C-alpha cells in the first residue's frame, strides 16, 4: 500500500469514529429499541415485552432480528448504557468488513493491489460510513455475510455455512439473499458435495424458521413488508412492482447523487451512497471481473429489497455496497490524478454535509430524550406523576412536522429502569403507565393538573394560557440545531 492509500484508509477510519456519540445526534427509534432490548435481556433474560430470549424482538412493532441485541447485551453489561456502546458493534463490524472485502477481492481477482484498494475504497464510501456510525442490524449482518462469502469462495464448507446463516440471524434482508447465495454458490464451489453444504445450512437456519412458523403473527415484518401483501394486488402487479423496484435499486442517480437521505426530502445537496467519480472505475471494472459467483452475488443483492414495499431503502440494500466497491477497485488502476482530485473533493463534500449540515438540518427529527431522562432522574423522587407526550417537533403552528416518538424506551434505557417496569406496563386506550411515568398525548383541555406532577411536552405542544398560572416551566432542552425542543412543566 502506498502512502496515499494509507492516508485515505486513515481518513476513512477517522470518518467512522469522529464525534461518534453525537453525530447522528441521538439514538434513532431502531437504535434505542435494540439498545433497550439488549439491556432488558442482560438483567432479566427477557425483552421489553417479557418474551424469554426471543429470536425475534417485537420491539415497538418492528420485530427486529436478534443478532445485534445479543451481541450488544454483554457490552452493555460491561460498559454500561451510552450511545457509544450501542453503536460499538456496528462500528467494529464496519471496520472488520473493510478487512474482509480485501480478502474477498483477493480471492476473486488474485490481484493484491486490487484487494487493498477495495478495502480503501470501502473505507471512504459514504454508504458504509453512514451504516457503520449507527446501530444498524444490517451492518452487523453485512460483516457475517461477507465472512460467509469469503469462506464460500475458499471452499470451506462448514465456516461458509456458519457465517452465512449467522447473517440470517442479523437482518431480514438476508432471509432471502443467503438461501439464494447458498443454493447458487454451493453448486459453483462444492459441486458434488453441495447437498452436504445445503443440509448444514438448513440445520443451522432451522431455529429461525421454526420461530417464524410458531411465533410470527400477522403484524410481523415478514408478513407486512413484502410487495405481495399490498392491498388489492395481483400476481402481475407484484411482478411489475418487483421489476420497477429492482431497476430503481440500480438507479445511478440514487447510487451516486442523492441516495444518502440524511437531509430533508428533495434537498438538492443530498449526497450519493457512493462517491460519484466511482461511476467510471465501476464501468471499467465490470469488464475485468470474470468470476461467475461474483456476478450472481451482485445481481442477487438487491432482490430482497426490491421485494419489499416503499421507496429505495439504503439499509435494506446495504448488501450491494460490497460488490459495487469490488467492481470499482477492479477498474481503479486506470484512474488519473484528476479523477483522484474529484474523488477527494466529493469525499470532502460528503464530510461537510454529514458532520456540519446533517445535525443542523435534521435537528428536530431526532428524539433528544437522553438529557430529558437524566434531568427527570433528579426530580423523580419529588414528582407525584410524570406525564410525557410522545409527540415531538414544532407542529402546532405549522412551523414543523409532528413526529411520533417512543420516549419510554429512552427513559428506561438512560435511567436504567428495572426491566420489569416495561414488561408489566399497563395500557389504556390512550396512555401507557410505567410506574410514575405516563406516556400518551397531553391534551391541556382534558388532562387534570395534579399537584406535584411533571409534564414533558415538545415545543409544539406548550401549555394553553388558561393553565399556565397553575404551572411553572422548570427546564427546557434544545435539539442538535440549537432550537428549543422540549419543555418541562411542573404543577404548583
Amino acid at each position, binding site marked *: 500500500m502506498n502512502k496515499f492509500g494509507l492516508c485515505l484508509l486513515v481518513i476513512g477510519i477517522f470518518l467512522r469514529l469522529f464525534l461518534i456519540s453525537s453525530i447522528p445526534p441521538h439514538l434513532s427509534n431502531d437504535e434505542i429499541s435494540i439498545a433497550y432490548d439488549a439491556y432488558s435481556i442482560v438483567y432479566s433474560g427477557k425483552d421489553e415485552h417479557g418474551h424469554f430470549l426471543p429470536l425475534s424482538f417485537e420491539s415497538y412493532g418492528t420485530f427486529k432480528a436478534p443478532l445485534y441485541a445479543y451481541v450488544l447485551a454483554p457490552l452493555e453489561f460491561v460498559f454500561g448504557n451510552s450511545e457509544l456502546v450501542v453503536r460499538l458493534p456496528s462500528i467494529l463490524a464496519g471496520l472488520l468488513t473493510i478487512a474482509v472485502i480485501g480478502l474477498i477481492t483477493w480471492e476473486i481477482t488474485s490481484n493484491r493491489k486490487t484487494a487493498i484498494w477495495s478495502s480503501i475504497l470501502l473505507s471512504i464510501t459514504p454508504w458504509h460510513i453512514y451504516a457503520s456510525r449507527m446501530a444498524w442490524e444490517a451492518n452487523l449482518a453485512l460483516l457475517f455475510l461477507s465472512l460467509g462469502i469469503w469462506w464460500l469462495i475458499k471452499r470451506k464448507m462448514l465456516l461458509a455455512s456458519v457465517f452465512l446463516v449467522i447473517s440470517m440471524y442479523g437482518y431480514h434482508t438476508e432471509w432471502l439473499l443467503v438461501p439464494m447465495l447458498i443454493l447458487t454458490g454451493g453448486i459453483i464451489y462444492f459441486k458434488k458435495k453441495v447437498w452436504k453444504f445445503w443440509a448444514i445450512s438448513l440445520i443451522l437456519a432451522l431455529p429461525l424458521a421454526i420461530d417464524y412458523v410458531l411465533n410470527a403473527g400477522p403484524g410481523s415484518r415478514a408478513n407486512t413488508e413484502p410487495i405481495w401483501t399490498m392491498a388489492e394486488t395481483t400476481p402481475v402487479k407484484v411482478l411489475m412492482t418487483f421489476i420497477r423496484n429492482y*431497476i*430503481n435499486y440500480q*438507479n445511478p442517480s440514487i447510487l451516486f*447523487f*442523492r441516495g444518502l437521505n440524511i437531509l430533508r426530502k428533495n*434537498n438538492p*445537496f443530498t449526497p450519493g451512497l457512493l462517491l460519484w467519480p466511482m461511476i467510471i472505475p465501476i464501468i471499467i471494472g465490470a469488464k475485468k471481473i470474470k468470476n461467475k459467483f461474483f456476478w450472481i452475488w451482485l445481481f442477487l443483492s438487491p432482490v430482497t429489497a426490491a421485494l419489499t414495499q416503499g421507496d429505495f431503502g439504503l439499509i435494506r440494500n446495504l448488501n450491494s455496497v460490497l460488490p459495487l466497491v469490488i467492481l470499482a477497485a477492479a477498474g481503479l488502476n486506470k484512474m488519473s490524478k484528476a479523477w483522484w482530485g474529484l474523488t477527494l473533493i466529493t469525499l470532502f463534500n460528503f464530510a461537510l454535509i454529514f458532520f*456540519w449540515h446533517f445535525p*443542523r*438540518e435534521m435537528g428536530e427529527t431526532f428524539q433528544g430524550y437522553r438529557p430529558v431522562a437524566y434531568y427527570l432522574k433528579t426530580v423523580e423522587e419529588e414528582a407525584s406523576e410524570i406525564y410525557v407526550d410522545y409527540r415531538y417537533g414544532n407542529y402546532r403552528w405549522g412551523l414543523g412536522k409532528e413526529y411520533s416518538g417512543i420516549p419510554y424506551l429512552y427513559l428506561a434505557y438512560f435511567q436504567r429502569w428495572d426491566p420489569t417496569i416495561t414488561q408489566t406496563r399497563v395500557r389504556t386506550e390512550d396512555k401507557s403507565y410505567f410506574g410514575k411515568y405516563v406516556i400518551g398525548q397531553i391534551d391541556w383541555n382534558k388532562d387534570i393538573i395534579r399537584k406535584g406532577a411533571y409534564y414533558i411536552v415538545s415545543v409544539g405542544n406548550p401549555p394553553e394560557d388558561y393553565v399556565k398560572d397553575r404551572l411553572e416551566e422548570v427546564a427546557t432542552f434544545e435539539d442538535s440545531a440549537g432550537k428549543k425542543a422540549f419543555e418541562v412543566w411542573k404543577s404548583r
Partner: protein
Amino acid sequence: MGLIARNIKSPFWQDVEYQESILSFQKDQDLMPYRLRVWWWNKSVVLKTIFERTVDLVWMGSSYYLAMIYLLVLALKKRWLNFWLVVIGLVLIAIEKDPNPGSYLWWLSPFVISAFIK
C-alpha cells in the same frame, strides 16, 4: 430537439421551491465565505440536479422506460452520434421544471430511427 429547447418555459432552477431549498439550507448553517459559497453550492448543485433529473428520466420508468430503451438500442448498435443526441435531448427535457416525459420523449424517436437508415 429545437422544439424541446423552445418549449423550456420554466427551468427547475427558477422554481421557488428549489431556490428556497438552497437558501434555507444555507441561511443558518453555512460555514463558508459568501463568494466560495456561491461557487461551491449554488453552481455545483444545479449541475448535480441536472444530472440527477436526466438519469431519473431514463431510470424511473417514464413512458414504459422509453428513454432507457432508446439508449440501450443505440449503445448496442454502437450508433454513438445518435446516442449523444438523445442524451442532449434528455438533458433538455430534464431541465424543464415539470418535464412531462410522456409527450416529449417521443420527439426523440427520429434520432433512434435515423440510426438505422443507411
